[in-house]
């Protein structure tokens, strides 16, 4: 009945020397013990309140005992509140940590530092009702936090004085500046003056008050001028300049800016003339998007995920135009190789299957459409190729080449250099036919495309062989085994490296294969999908490593 069990009373009685306390007496005493304890606590709480504290301390209980003319309990003179420990195995049983102290240690210990003397520090909590932002005051977040849970303040609604929005005063100079920039952006020319203006936008300080106006302007003009290619390009340049300006704090306006930028990336139609190179605009915007994500992705964690979601949705929707697909691919590619690997590569096969009929030019009556398809194909190829390139580059180079190998390594470098050049030529070849298409506009464009598919194959046959060791796990992919086209030097190199590294590299390679079997598989998969077109993307150094 009482919260003090009779066992407690018995224990207390024993501790003060009463051994023969009857259990009935203990039972009778228990309620009184509880009452007295409550009484003491009530007085102790009074003492605590008058000491202007909200934590009860031992001195408060001593004060309460004093009030009742009871001798205080000695040995608990610490000013700080007690640290209670939870008794293991019990839900609400606590005890104070009472360690045994070695007397000798206490005597021999150096004197503790004298506590610092009490002082008064003065600061302004508020100046005419406004809290100055000084270190002595609570940071502003703390001020905002309680504003959220102020139910009674919100309740008396009519009494709250509603503050009108603050009038933003723009200086005359800033107004002129804004007008001039806006005019230049609207002029649709790519004049030198506009370039100067962009440089000014990217570097001048003191433009911050104009940022809301610029974001508004860009959003308005983008939504209005989707047919005007040059305008859009100018606007995107403006965006980039604003982003580059180190004095501008763009974060609060990003949410306004992003929709316009993404529009320029994945809109169905940008510009109304055929000559408008909207591909270039999309490429440019893709880089812009990547820049934004890189810079502010840490501040807005959801930024990149939301963006990639938008883009991948655009890509995977077969109803969307090919131009939109192109923009989405470019945007995703610009976001980095990981994005490509995680989002594009898994969808690659079905997508390419979807694209195939468009690519087959014979059936295609609409030239423009087939051109677009090839454009998308090229973008895909580039994205995945760069991705695999990056993956392969992760592989460590040979850890400690032996001196004898160093010599041969030199030879290798000499060897690889022209190959690298060749690769770059290849990639330019890979690209150039597509560009040529613009001028050709003929059915032979497809033939030239076929040609590009063939041409590097001849050159890169040995490179294909280089992949053999890696792909040995999947013999299916090695249908093109070593053939007569191999050059002498290359043959020698294969042999040499095969011999020289057989011992040192084998262990490492095993490991690398294990680790990067998936990238090996990826490579195989890509090769299956693209044929040899993927090969220029395989870094030459890596290929030679795997020789």
């Amino acid at each position, binding site marked *: 009945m009482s919260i003090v069990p009779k066992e407690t009373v018995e224990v207390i009685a024993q501790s003060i020397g009463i051994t023969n306390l009857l259990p009935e007496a203990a039972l009778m005493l228990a309620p009184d013990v509880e009452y007295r304890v409550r009484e003491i606590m009530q007085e102790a709480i009074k003492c605590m309140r*008058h000491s202007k504290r909200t934590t009860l301390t031992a001195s408060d209980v001593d004060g309460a005992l004093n009030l009742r003319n009871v001798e205080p309990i000695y040995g608990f003179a610490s000013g700080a509140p007690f640290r209670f420990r939870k008794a293991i195995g019990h839900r609400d049983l606590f005890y104070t940590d009472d360690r045994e102290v070695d007397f000798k240690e206490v005597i021999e210990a150096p004197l503790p530092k004298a506590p610092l003397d009490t002082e008064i520090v003065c600061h302004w909590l508020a100046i005419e009702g406004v809290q100055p932002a000084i270190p002595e005051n609570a940071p502003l977040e703390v001020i905002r936090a309680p504003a959220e849970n102020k139910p*009674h303040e919100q309740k008396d609604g009519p009494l709250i004085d509603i503050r009108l929005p603050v009038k933003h005063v723009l200086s005359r100079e800033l107004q002129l500046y804004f007008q001039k920039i806006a005019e230049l952006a609207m002029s649709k020319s790519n004049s030198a003056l506009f370039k100067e203006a962009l440089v000014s936008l990217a570097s001048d300080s003191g433009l911050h008050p104009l940022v809301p106006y610029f974001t508004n302007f860009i959003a308005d003009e983008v939504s209005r001028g989707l047919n005007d290619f040059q305008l859009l390009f100018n606007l995107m340049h403006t965006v980039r300049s604003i982003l580059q300006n180190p004095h501008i704090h763009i974060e609060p306006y990003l949410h306004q800016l992003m929709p316009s930028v993404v529009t320029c990336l994945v809109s169905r139609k940008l510009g109304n003339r055929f000559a408008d190179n909207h591909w270039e605009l999309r490429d440019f915007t893709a880089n812009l998007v990547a820049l934004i994500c890189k810079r502010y992705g840490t501040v807005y964690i959801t930024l990149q995920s939301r963006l990639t979601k938008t883009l991948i949705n655009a890509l995977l929707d077969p109803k969307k135009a090919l131009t939109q697909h192109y923009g989405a691919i470019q945007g995703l590619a610009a976001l980095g190789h990981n994005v490509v690997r995680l989002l594009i590569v898994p969808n690659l096969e079905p997508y390419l299957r979807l694209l195939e009929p468009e690519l087959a030019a014979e059936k295609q009556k609409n030239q423009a459409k087939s051109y677009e398809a090839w454009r998308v194909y090229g973008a895909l190829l580039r994205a995945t190729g760069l991705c695999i390139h990056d993956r392969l580059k992760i592989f460590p180079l040979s850890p400690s080449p032996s001196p004898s190998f160093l010599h041969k390594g030199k030879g290798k470098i000499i060897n690889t250099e022209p190959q690298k050049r060749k690769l770059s030529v290849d990639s330019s070849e890979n690209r150039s036919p597509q560009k040529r298409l613009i001028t050709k506009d003929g059915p032979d464009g497809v033939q030239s495309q076929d040609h590009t598919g063939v041409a590097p194959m001849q050159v890169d046959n040995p490179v294909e062989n280089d992949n053999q060791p890696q792909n040995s796990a999947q013999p299916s992919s090695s249908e093109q085994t070593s053939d007569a086209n191999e050059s002498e030097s290359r043959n020698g190199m294969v042999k040499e490296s095969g011999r020289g590294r057989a011992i040192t590299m084998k262990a490492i390679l095993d490991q690398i294969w294990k680790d990067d079997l998936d990238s090996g598989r990826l490579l195989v998969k890509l090769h299956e999908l693209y044929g040899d077109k993927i090969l220029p993307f395989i870094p030459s150094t890596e290929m030679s490593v795997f020789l």
Partner: protein
Amino acid sequence: MDPEQINEFVVGYLKKKGFSSAAKDLEDFHHQNNGSSLSPIDYHNDPELTKLIRSFSQQEDDPTRYRECYSKLRSWAYNSLDLYKHELLRVMYPVFIHCYMDLVGKGHTQEARAFFNSFRKDHEMVHLRDLQKLEGVLAPSHLEEMEFARSLRKSKVNIKICQYSYDLLLQYLHRTESTLMLGIINEHINFQVYSGQPTSSSDDIEAVTIVGSFQDTANHINQKEIQWGLLEDSLEDRLEKTGGLLSDSEKGQGESKDDADDSKKRSTETGKQGSSIKKLKKDKAGNATAKVARLETSTVPPTPRVKPELALPVMSTDVEQSILEDLRNRVQLSSVAMPSVSFYTFVNTHNGLNCASISHDGSLVAGGFSDSSIKVWDMAKIGQTGSGALQGENDTNDPTIAPNGRRNYTLLLGHSGPVYSATFSPPGDFVLSSSADTTIRLWSTQLNANLVCYKGHNYPVWDVQFSPFGHYFASCSHDRTARIWSMDRIQPLRIMAGHLSDVDCVQWHPNCNYIATGSSDKTVRLWDVQTGECVRIFIGHRSMVLSLAMSPDGRYMSSGDEDGTIMMWDLSTARCITPLMGHNSCVWSLAYSGEGSLLASGSADCTVKLWDVTSSTKSTKAEEKNVSSNRLRSLRTFPTKSTPVHALRFSRRNLLFAAGAISKPAS
């Protein structure tokens, strides 16, 4: 005894007394009865009576009946009509606590505890603190010992109830024959039945506190007349009068009168003439602002003036001049013109700071510590002008400010217990401190020494306050009294007794004729200083009252409690104008701005809040009926880093000073 004998005895008695006709009737009656041999009341055959008797006997030996009856009544009340429900529920609390105390009183401790715990939740919201007190009562002896319980047992609770609710309740009690409940209700509740519709549940503040018998006395006391007006011929008055160009000549007259009064003093201060001329020049400059102030104040209905009941000390001329100067330079504060707040943070107090006090000009800060010491800092000397401008930092090496070696404060030692309160005299030349050693000590800030030790209280003195004019001071203590003292006597002049628990805080009315005291019995009382009588009781707080403040015009008072509620009271009607909700911990300190338009509150939740007081008082005057709209509003909240605000003070120029000890956040 034989019934025949009794009859004979009664008849004989009646005859002796001369009631012959009555005796004859009785004899006739008995003869008839004897003939029919019928006893007048048949105890055994009347079923109603047997039931009643049985219920009485049952009630005696069965403690579970309390629980049954109470829970029946409770479920009936909860299921009653919505319109009358709150009135009926109000009856439940007294019934509950009396059931509990009955059970305890009869020794059924276990049942009492079980009963208490099962229904405690119903009343926790409103009566938490009372329940906490009662919870400990477990034996009949405790009921006798505990004053709160005793007063509850002795007195009846007044409950206002509408006619229909009352009828409902009576019908229920009779129908169910719950004589037990009926008994408790009859014994402990005094119904004030009124006709008409039940009142809305919000405006019954009295229902919140059960204060025993003195609800009646409170109502009675609150009928008394009080003179809440300001003193006639106060400095503010004089400032208003002399606001115009007349000021120079009038002041000249006043000075000459003063000069005539104490010519001796005059002769010693030869240089004063020059300085006063300078001051007069300054006054002219200040006149412009004073005029504006005068115009503004003239729109407010003038506050009545009263004569002082105490002999007030004479203020020296230069003190008066400096005060007038301050008043003239006062910043007018309102909801749009906020004050500046200068914060004094105590560092390295090691949890020992019990109280802080700031002098009227903000230049002196005193701290009372639990190690019995008082420390006084002169902020003007620590590179801080009185008006609070920040000039450089503390320079402890400056020889002028460190008379005691490295210390830059004055240490006042003398108490032998924790110091609970300190207060500065208005000019700042004296400090009073009160301590757990039951004494009050007077210290001089010029001599840095203890002058007087006032002994009178029997228990720790919780609070001491100088009167607005100095010389007199009031103290309050755990011994449930407040006392009025003057500096030159070591005995108290008046003892104010009446509170039912500790008197925790005390505050002077601006006209010095009254003091207000806040107590742990959750009431605030206003006392007449001259007669020592209680003239007002303010009921409404739900926990211990910790701080009090009087508006400068003497019309209003505000009080802050342990839960963070601040109540603003109208002194003349003893009614709460509005509770100010916002703080979520103890309100340690309250202060009105110089002209009374703002109220500042400092709390243990580490914030200083500013409240607009004018909006509410105006609207109450304008339309009394619109009760809900005249709530005071919180204007600003200034959070400190982690410093509970112990003290607040508006300087005469309306700069707000705040003080507190920084507390390390619990790791």
